[in-house]
């Protein structure tokens, strides 16, 4: 049983598939009229958010509530929390109040690791995004979405062997890209990163991925099964990573013309929120190939599965 989910790389192939399988059961619950399980009754889950992210927070909140856990939302941004010691104080405060699990979102890379290895806290810890490092539940929900698109009702037990995934955009600063890389490697998929050279790491030698500068060439030559567009953060736009938004959209943005080049079975993902017209145009975002809303729905099921796996201590036989 795992106690922490800090990195998508923490999961073995079997553990990852088990979480995805549990999430299948959770997805069924989410289809029911009464979308609730008693599994985590009496447990307290704290959403500790040092950074704004309404989507991720409500996804975790809904996941915990559907498992009947008590949920506390602690939004630390904008309060006196800006210096490092506050992470410690906040964590110890939550510990003193008896939190069973802490879901942490923090602007500093490694914040969840520090929390896990500091002895400030005894409960389970879920990394809900740390700086430009990782966002493991996003990778899990993406893998879940891929599996579902490909295998439908027969998804259980499946990995992603041989799947060709092109991840496009600001790879350098993307925790989504890092977590997806690790989990997709674990599940047997083939990862291709596509980005302007300024938005790739200077030394990616430890990465098991192929790197490309040209989106069009990648689409044409690699014929990916999945194209995942990454969000371009506003703070990159005036920092000389690329000359202009227009040029970025033209060369690395996904649009209707590129949509036509995808093979029929291929699909298009985006972790949201989208910059429509920048990394993805409206036609592509709203096309049948787009999985954006499925990803949101699957996010709740996957986070239910993660909280369940960390907190229940039991196998998922009763789901």
């Amino acid at each position, binding site marked *: 049983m795992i106690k922490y989910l800090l990195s998508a790389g923490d999961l073995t192939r079997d553990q990852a598939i088990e979480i995805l399988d549990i999430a299948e059961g959770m997805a069924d619950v989410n289809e029911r009229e009464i979308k609730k399980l008693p599994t985590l009754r009496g447990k307290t889950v704290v959403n500790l958010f040092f950074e704004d992210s309404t989507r991720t927070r409500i996804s975790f909140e809904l996941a915990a509530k559907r498992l009947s856990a008590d949920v506390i939302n602690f939004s630390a941004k904008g309060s006196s929390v800006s210096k490092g*010691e506050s992470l*410690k104080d906040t964590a110890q405060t939550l510990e003193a109040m008896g939190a069973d699990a802490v879901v942490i979102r923090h602007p500093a890379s490694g*914040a969840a690791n*520090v929390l896990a*290895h*500091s002895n400030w806290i005894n409960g389970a810890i879920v990394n809900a995004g740390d700086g430009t490092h990782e966002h493991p539940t996003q990778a899990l929900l993406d893998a879940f979405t891929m599996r579902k698109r490909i295998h439908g009702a027969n998804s259980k037990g499946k990995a992603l062997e041989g799947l060709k995934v092109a991840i496009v955009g600001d790879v350098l*600063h993307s925790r989504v890209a890092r977590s997806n890389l690790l989990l997709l490697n674990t599940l047997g998929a083939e990862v291709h990163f596509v980005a302007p050279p300024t938005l790739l*790491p200077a030394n990616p030698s430890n990465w098991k991925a192929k790197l490309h500068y040209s989106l069009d060439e990648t689409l044409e030559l690699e014929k990916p099964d999945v194209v995942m567009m990454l969000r371009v953060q506003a703070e990159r736009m005036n920092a000389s990573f690329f000359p202009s938004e227009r040029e970025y959209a033209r060369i690395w943005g996904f649009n209707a013309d590129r949509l036509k080049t995808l093979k029929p079975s291929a699909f298009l993902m985006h972790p949201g929120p989208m910059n429509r017209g920048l990394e993805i145009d409206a036609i592509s975002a709203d096309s049948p190939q787009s999985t954006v809303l499925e990803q949101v729905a699957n996010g709740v099921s996957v986070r239910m599965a993660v909280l369940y796996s960390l907190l229940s201590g039991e196998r998922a036989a009763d789901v």
Partner: protein
Amino acid sequence: MSNSFVLKNVQLGDGGATDILVEADKIVAIGSGLTAAEVIDCTGLVALPGFVDLHTHLREPGFEQSETVLTGTQAAAMGGFTAVHAMANTSPVADTAGVVEQVAALGREAGYADVYPIGAVTVGLEGKQLAELGAMANSKAQVRVFSDDGKCVHDPVLMRRALEYVKAFGGVVAQHAQEPRLTEGAQMNEGAVSAELGLTGWPAVAEESIIARDVLLAEHVGSRVHICHLSTAGSVEIVRWAKARGIQVTAEVTPHHLLLTDELVRSYDAVYKVNPPLRTAADVLALREALVDGTIDIIATDHAPHPIEAKDCEWSAAAFGMLGLETAASIAQDVLIDSGKSNWSRLAEVLSTNPAKIGSDSEQGQGLVVGAFANIALIDPSVKRRVVADSASKSKNSPYVGLELLGQVKHTIYRGYFTVRDGKLAEVGRN
């Protein structure tokens, strides 16, 4: 009290066993069969000239919660040092005669080592206007080393002027080589590990480009320049090239850059956060070789104490810097002696003679010769010790805690006075 003792049966550097007779603050005789009122058996101990650190952060005035001149020099004594150069990034900054004289006076009052204040190159370390270098040089503190350490003198005109100006009084500028724009928000070495960890990279080129510029500036104006804490293989190449060309450049390396790599950052334990950052194994190897072959002139600790709260937090919020005084000799021994690549004479050069020469410390680094001040470090090279968090420093941010290091400072003699005896710190300093 009249002070007279014999260090019996010491191993004099690479030489054989002998005795050293100390009277008052001087070495008065070296040879066999010496006697005095007090005889200290030093069988198995290597005698070295007291170490001189060209790069120490004593934090006083202003940051006494981290370190004071007293506790910092006590840590220095524990490491075999008899002199330290106190960096200027205090509060107020050591950019006036008043501050440097205050730091020097605190050093004398403490009595654990000679304290040579380093003067800031620019007012407030802001890189805009030269500090009163002449006033600091002519003050009672007689400053000869100037540095904005912690910040780079990145304006090329200011750097040129500083290099020229300090020639008037035989000074040297010690450059913290870090191109500021290339290192905005930098958290760790830019490389394969930073790519994985999602921490903003501090690229080697940000150090190397400044060193390349500064050795060329030094050549142009005929000045000497000292490079602080060299950390990359590329920097070694540039310094090697500059020396071959006859440029007056000297370079230092820290103990941590000789031993630790950026792989340690994977823990996100901020004790490994330091500036310049820990680099790759290939860099460590190049630095070790450069120390052996003389491209790098000295080991300087960059001892940088920080209180617990500055390290017990997420990586990006943590302070840069690590302790180094009490472990420096062991790491020097590892690189030069235990590796089989060099010898004790070289160790004495890099930890004593050379730093004293670069810093123009006439009363330090004199070597173990008759007539010299009795500044002596006695090391037992065979002791294996596990580094513990407990330290003479006021801070605990040592990256070596839990590691086993070979070699231990048994006694430190500062101007004829035992600041450390049998591994224990003297309760009071020399007065």
